[in-house]
C-alpha cells in the first residue's frame, strides 16, 4: 500500500516539476520527427541537444542569414550551396572582404552519423564545428559573442530563440545548437544507389553495376575506405582518416589529422568524405585539386604519391604501384566507376523544400 502512495506522490511531484519547467523547455509536441531508412546505421544523437521543430527551423534561418558575418555579406549558404549538395563549386571559398582559404568547402550530407568534422577532424561535434566559420577571419570574420548580441537585439530572432531554448538572451552555445539541429536533418537517401537495398543489382545499368563491382571488390579497394555498403557514409572513428596518397612526404608535414594529434604518423591523413552526391560537389579533394571525376579516377589509377603514411590498401600491391603508380585502371573501368558514382546523385535532396533558403519567397 505504502508503495502505491509513494508512487502517487512521486507522480504528483514530477507533474508539478514539469509544469514549473514548461516555460524553459520546448513543448512536447515540438519534438522533431526524424526518419532515416532502416539500412542507415543507428543514430547516436546528443542528449543535450535533442531535435525540436523550433530548433531546426531556427537553425535553418541562421544557416541562410548573413547576420552571422561581420559585414552581413556571407552566410553559411554562401559556401555551402544546396544545388552543390551544400558544397561549393569553387576550389577555395571566398569569405568576408574577399579573403580566401586554402581548402575546398565540404558537402553537408548525413552528418548526423559522423563524429569528426573538417578535413583534419579538428571539431569533435557539429555543435563545436558550427561557430568555427563565424570566428574564422577568412570566412565570416565575426565573433560568436557579437553575433549572439546581434541576435538578442533582433525582433525576429529573440522570440524564436525563446521558443526553441526558453530564453531570448542568445548565447553562442544556443546558436551552435540550432545550426547543428538543422544540419542533422540534412539527409540523402533517395539516390539510385539507395534502391540497391530493395532490388539489389536490378537497381543498376550494366555499366553502373560494373562500377559498383570495382568499387566493392579489391579491384578498386574503394569500399575499404569509403564506407560500408550500408550507406556510403564515411563511418567510424578508426577508419575515418586515411592517407590516399595525394601529397608527398614533404608536402604532408603537419597537414591532415596530424594537425590535431601532432603525430607524424597522422601526416596526410584526411577525413574520408562521403561520396553521396559526389557528381555535384566538385572540385574534389581537400584542396580542390581535381576538377572532375575523371581526374580523380586518373589519380587513383596512376597518380598516387608513395609517401611514408600511404594507406595499406595501396601499399599492399607494390607491383601495381611500381608499374602504374596506382590501381592501373583501364579507361573502361574508370568510366564504369564514374557511372556508379553517378548513381549516388540524389536530386530530391537538392530540391528538398525543408533544406531550402527560408527567406526566399
Amino acid at each position, binding site marked *: 500500500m505504502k508503495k502505491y502512495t509513494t508512487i502517487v506522490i512521486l507522480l504528483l511531484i514530477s507533474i508539478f516539476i514539469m509544469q514549473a519547467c514548461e516555460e524553459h523547455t520546448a513543448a512536447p509536441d515540438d519534438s522533431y520527427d526524424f526518419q532515416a531508412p532502416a539500412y542507415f546505421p543507428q543514430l547516436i544523437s546528443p542528449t543535450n541537444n535533442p531535435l525540436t521543430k523550433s530548433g531546426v527551423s531556427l537553425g535553418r534561418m541562421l544557416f541562410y542569414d548573413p547576420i552571422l558575418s561581420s559585414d552581413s555579406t556571407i552566410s553559411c549558404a554562401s559556401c555551402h550551396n544546396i544545388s552543390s549538395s551544400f558544397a561549393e563549386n569553387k576550389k577555395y571559398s571566398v569569405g568576408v572582404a574577399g579573403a580566401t582559404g586554402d581548402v575546398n568547402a565540404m558537402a553537408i550530407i548525413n552528418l548526423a552519423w559522423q563524429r569528426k568534422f573538417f578535413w583534419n577532424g579538428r571539431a569533435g561535434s557539429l555543435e563545436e564545428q558550427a561557430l568555427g566559420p563565424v570566428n574564422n577571419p577568412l570566412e565570416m570574420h565575426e565573433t560568436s559573442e557579437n553575433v549572439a548580441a546581434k541576435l538578442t537585439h533582433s525582433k525576429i530572432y529573440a522570440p524564436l530563440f525563446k521558443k526553441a531554448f526558453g530564453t531570448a538572451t542568445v548565447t553562442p552555445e544556443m546558436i551552435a545548437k540550432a545550426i547543428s539541429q538543422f544540419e542533422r536533418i540534412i539527409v540523402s537517401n533517395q539516390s539510385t544507389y539507395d534502391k540497391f537495398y530493395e532490388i539489389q543489382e536490378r537497381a543498376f545499368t550494366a555499366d553502373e553495376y560494373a562500377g559498383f563491382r570495382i568499387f566493392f571488390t579489391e579491384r578498386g579497394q574503394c569500399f575499404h575506405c569509403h564506407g560500408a555498403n550500408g550507406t556510403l557514409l564515411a563511418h567510424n572513428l578508426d577508419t575515418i582518416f586515411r592517407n590516399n596518397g595525394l601529397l608527398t612526404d614533404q608536402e604532408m608535414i603537419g597537414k591532415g589529422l596530424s594537425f590535431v594529434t601532432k603525430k607524424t604518423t597522422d601526416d596526410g591523413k584526411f577525413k574520408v568524405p562521403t561520396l553521396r552526391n559526389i557528381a555535384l560537389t566538385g572540385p574534389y579533394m581537400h584542396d580542390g585539386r581535381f576538377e572532375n571525376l575523371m581526374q580523380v579516377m586518373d589519380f587513383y589509377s596512376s597518380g598516387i604519391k608513395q609517401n611514408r603514411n600511404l594507406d595499406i590498401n*595501396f601499399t599492399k600491391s607494390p607491383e601495381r604501384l611500381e608499374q602504374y603508380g596506382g590501381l592501373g585502371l583501364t579507361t573502361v573501368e574508370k568510366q564504369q566507376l564514374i557511372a556508379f558514382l553517378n548513381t549516388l546523385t540524389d536530386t530530391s535532396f537538392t530540391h528538398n523544400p525543408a533544406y531550402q533558403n527560408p527567406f526566399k519567397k
Partner: protein
Amino acid sequence: MKVQLFLVFLFFSLAGCTWGNQNTNGTLQVNFQHTFQNSTLVISENNQLIYTTATGNKFNIKTLKYYISKLTLYQSNGVKYDVNMVKLINPMEANVNYQNYTLSNIPEGKYTKISFQFGVDSARNIFPFGLPNNSENNSMEWPYTLGGGYHFMMMEGVFQNSSNDTVGYAIHLGKTPNQIYNEYPLDLNVNGNDQSITFQANIDQWFNGINQINLNDGYGYMMEDQQKQLLFKQNGVGVFTLK
C-alpha cells in the same frame, strides 16, 4: 524531501525482487589477451618492423580486430549454456571491454567444457545487417559483391618484401566456411559467483601453424582467394589457448 521519498520508493521496489530469492546463477568474464611469441602484442602506428615471422618476414601489425561467436559452456551430463552471442574483439582499443565478453546468468552447475567460434556465426553472417547496423560492425562489412557478411578478421600492417621495400599486407578472412571452432576442457563451478577465465591469442600462430606463411606470396588481395584464406583457417586452430 523529494530525495527521501525517492529513496523510500527505490527501497520498496528493489526489496520486492530480492527478498527470499537466493541467486545461484553466476557470471563468467571471458578475457582475450594478445601475445606475439609470448610477449604482449604491440600494435604499431609507424612502419618500424618489430616482429619476425617463422619464415623470416620482418613485419608489424597496425590493425587487428576479429569476431568471436557462440561462446558455450557444457556440463558433463550434456547440459549446455549457450547465449548465442557475437562480439568484436579489438586489441587496438585501450579499453579492455573491447577484449572481453561476460556471460551472465549462468545456471548453477559444474561446467567441464567451453567452446567458441572464431568468426561471425552463420545465421548472422549475411547481407545486409546480420549484425546491428552500427559503425563498429559496418567497418567490418564483407561486401555484397564478395558474398556478404562480415570480415571475421582484419589483420594489417607492413613488412619488408623480397626487394627490401616496406610494403603493406592485409589478411582479411571472412565467409561462413572459414569459421574456426575451438573447444577447451574447463573446471568451473557456478554457484552465484562471478568468475573469469582468459584466452591467450598467440598471434604468431596465424603465420606459423600447419602452414608457414610467407608474406611475399601476396597477402594483399585475398578476399576473393579462398586458397589463401584456407591457409589461415587451418593455422587458426592453434591461435587461442586457455590460460
